[in-house]
């Protein structure tokens, strides 16, 4: 039975043609093989792809894209599939172009401080490959041990250390891109800054795979700072913690990272795989890292300790050694996953607020938590105002998934109302496309889709992502949203 079904599927001319392009070992098209591609890190929506192909070079990507474009077959690109907003979910039965076989480090030029990578190259591998010479790649999303740099470009990924060093877009020097019609373009192919013309690097980075498929990336690499010091501070009162954040920045210090966790988040990480022994009765902790020239660090650490003490810190300490520093960071970086230890399911949100509005937004999130009867943990890149409310729920309880989604939306509304944004690093994807209306008018959304039309006029590449359903179809929008929730 299975065999005859397989034989039948093989007759699909598109599958045959794509097999011709990438080879039989680089395509999946049987239903059972496709199951693990029905979602990415955003697991609430699921949809099946038509096929998954694994091209080995730019030419194969271009040929596959051209094949799909010529026949109006929807397609999308996928990296490691760690995206948290559903950007790689094949809503329209897409052909998924997986870039995991294009995973090589092509060139490192230490003197000019650049490296050339293929899109499937894993973020952390870049730092690991150049650290023996004292260099590193700055953007460090929590998933950096598995996520790919191609995916980072699509999402304009951030990370804990982007407060001082910037997000992905600040580190991209050049790109090779396959456009949605199959044409290959090179933008700043020598990694030279400010190439004449409109800033296509800037527009493509963070376009969530809707404008083109990146096949080669030139990134900036940095020299490791001479010294790093990390401070951990426990606060009885979340307001004191928030004020300490502002005071540190006002003192003229730009820490490399400035992270906050609230009481519920601390409960989670302490039950997770990397407990540190944080007290369970504090309202907030700050993890602060300063780096730079060793001679200058001590003074900044002293200032930070003074700021914390002036804000009634219960306990504040400096990491004694690299081992302790590593443990603190592992505890923080695995924070999302650790929520699994205190809740069957959790939904990660990703809002941004002006730093100074933190106390009032946290208060609003508390009342959202009460209103929906769901616990919300907050993990926060406090230095740049990027808040990750983690909504804890149990999908086995009927209606609770829907409630969690609504609570998440309410958190984003709170961020937008405080003058912030609905996403700081996870992207819009399908998860937050309706919430785009919290911050953009119809005209402003149209201005963005006009740019999409320049690159992707037939909208075959990653259709249905990033932008809300046109407002004139309000009713349709409502239906889609409701169906999505019940899925």
């Amino acid at each position, binding site marked *: 039975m299975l065999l005859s079904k397989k034989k039948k599927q093989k007759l699909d001319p598109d599958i045959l043609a794509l097999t011709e392009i990438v080879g039989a070992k680089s395509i999946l098209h049987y239903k059972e093989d496709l199951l693990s591609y029905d979602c990415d890190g955003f697991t609430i929506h699921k949809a099946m792809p038509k096929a998954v192909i694994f091209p080995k070079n730019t030419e194969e990507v271009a040929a596959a894209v051209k094949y799909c474009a010529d026949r109006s077959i929807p397609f999308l690109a996928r990296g490691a599939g760690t995206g948290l907003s559903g950007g790689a979910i094949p809503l329209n039965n897409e052909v998924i172009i997986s870039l995991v076989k294009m995973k090589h480090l092509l060139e490192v030029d230490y003197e*000019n*401080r*650049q490296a050339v990578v293929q899109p499937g190259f894993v973020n952390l591998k870049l730092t690991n490959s150049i650290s023996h010479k004292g260099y590193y790649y700055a953007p460090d999303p929590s998933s950096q041990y598995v996520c790919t740099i191609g995916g980072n470009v699509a*999402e*304009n990924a951030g990370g804990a250390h*982007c407060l001082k060093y910037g997000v992905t*877009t600040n580190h991209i020097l050049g790109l090779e891109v396959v456009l949605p019609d199959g044409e290959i*373009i090179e933008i700043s192919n020598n*990694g*030279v*800054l*400010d190439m*004449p*013309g*409109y*800033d296509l690097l*800037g*527009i493509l980075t*963070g376009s969530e795979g809707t404008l083109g498929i990146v096949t080669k990336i030139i990134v900036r690499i940095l*020299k490791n*700072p001479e010294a790093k010091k990390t401070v951990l501070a426990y606060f009885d009162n979340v307001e004191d913690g928030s004020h300490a954040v502002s005071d540190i*920045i*006002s003192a*003229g*210090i*730009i820490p490399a990272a400035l992270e906050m966790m609230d009481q519920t988040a601390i409960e989670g990480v302490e039950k997770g795989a990397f407990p540190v022994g944080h007290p369970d009765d504090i309202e907030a902790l700050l993890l602060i890292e300063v780096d*730079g*020239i*060793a*001679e*200058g660090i001590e003074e900044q650490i002293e200032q930070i300790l003074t700021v914390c003490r002036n804000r009634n810190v219960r306990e504040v300490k400096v990491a004694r050694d690299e081992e302790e520093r590593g443990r603190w960071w592992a505890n923080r970086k695995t924070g999302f996953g650790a929520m699994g230890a205190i809740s069957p399911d959790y939904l990660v949100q990703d809002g*941004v*607020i*002006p*730093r*100074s509005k933190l106390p009032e937004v946290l208060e609003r999130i508390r009342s959202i938590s009460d209103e929906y009867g769901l616990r919300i943990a907050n993990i926060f890149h406090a230095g740049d*105002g990027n808040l990750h409310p983690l909504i804890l729920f149990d999908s086995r309880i009927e209606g609770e998934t829907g409630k969690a989604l609504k609570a998440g939306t309410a958190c984003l509304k709170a961020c937008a109302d405080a*003058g*912030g*944004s*609905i996403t700081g*690093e*996870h*992207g*819009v994807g399908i998860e*937050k496309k309706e919430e*785009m209306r919290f*911050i*953009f*008018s119809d*005209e*402003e*959304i149209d*201005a*963005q889709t*006009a*740019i*999409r039309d*320049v690159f992707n006029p037939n909208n075959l590449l990653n259709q249905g992502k*990033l932008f809300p359903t046109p407002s004139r179809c309000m009713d349709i929008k409502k239906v889609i949203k409701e169906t999505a929730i019940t899925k």
Partner: protein
Amino acid sequence: MDKHLLDVAPLTDSSNRFGNLSSNLLYPESEDEVVDIVTKANESGKKLSIVSGGTKLGYGGLKSNYDLTLSLKKFSGIVEHTVGDMTVTVKPGTTILELQTFLSRYNQMVSLDPSCPSTATIGGTIAANESGPKRLKYGSARDHVIGMRVVYADGKIIRTGGKVVKNVAGYDMNKLFIGSMGTLGVITEITLKLRPIPKHTSLVMLTVREEALDELTAFTKLIQDSLLEPVSLEILTPTMSKKLINRDEYCLLIALEDVKKAVQFQEVWIDQHKPNEAVMTVHPNPNYFWQSFNELIPNSLTDLGESTHGVLKVGTRNLDVFPLLQECARIHHEGNLKIEASGGAGHGLSTIIISGNNANVVNAIIHLQSFASDLKGYAIVKHLPIELRKELNVWGESDGLFKLFKSIKQKQDPNNTLNEQRFIGGI
């Protein structure tokens, strides 16, 4: 058109040496007035040039006369400064100096150091994506602009980005306008992220004879590979060095900004590791030095036409700055014209000032464009009288990307109302 906005100033050959103007100059003072001007021009098929401080009239553009010129000069001032969030919202006609002076009261700054800060405005700086010698550490407008309000050709007001320092909602539309030379919309408001003013600054200057440039090159590599955190690694040709510090030698400018102890540590390190050949001086007043550095590049306000000046912006890989500057010195030695140049070995952007007679200036530009192209870089003309610009391709080639550029322009400004022919490929 409202009378009070209009200033009719008949253009003459000498008052319009750089083009990009009109005898009908409009000075809106609000966004509503900008919308009004742009909408009416677009509806009536009039061509509008957009200027602000007036320093970049020699930067791109093939048209001498437009129907109207919209000047943002009087549309200036701080809209909002949130000290605790370290963000500022400002109107486009505010000069860089006004903005930095205002922020300095709060011990903050926009980390941008473009040329002619006393007259160049933030709007123009962003539209031309101007940066300065501290780009190595500071970055450029694309690293600091977090939000804008832009009036499109059809009069729509579009907000891009937001007011928070980290934001990936939708396309990063800010980037579209940075460096677009006013061809996609009129920027009416800009929100920037700020940095604290460094606690201590220093400027270390190392000079070497022309024959010893290789030693300076090697030392620059050594610094880049060291634990030092220079804010600039700017190399000056002997002519530029002569003008700024009265030494007819190559000079490496190492700016340091950090807490005092860290700066002093780096000064000592440089002293201990510098090439034998090099003479090291620590400048007594770095801020004063950078002011004079940034004001010496000719622009359309300061270039009064007694001789011909051309200014190039050259982009190469970081270390290709050295062969480029050597080539500049070589051309200078030929004696037909004067070339003063500086280049950032940490970011690969160089500024070349060429002075001489028309034919020699044009020939040197063509030569340097091809030299940069051989280095897989580019050279664009930042400043030159319009008649000479017409003899050159001031933006260089755009190869395979032009189709996309043109299509972007077509979407945003289908009637070519805004800054027609100002940008690459005649966009």
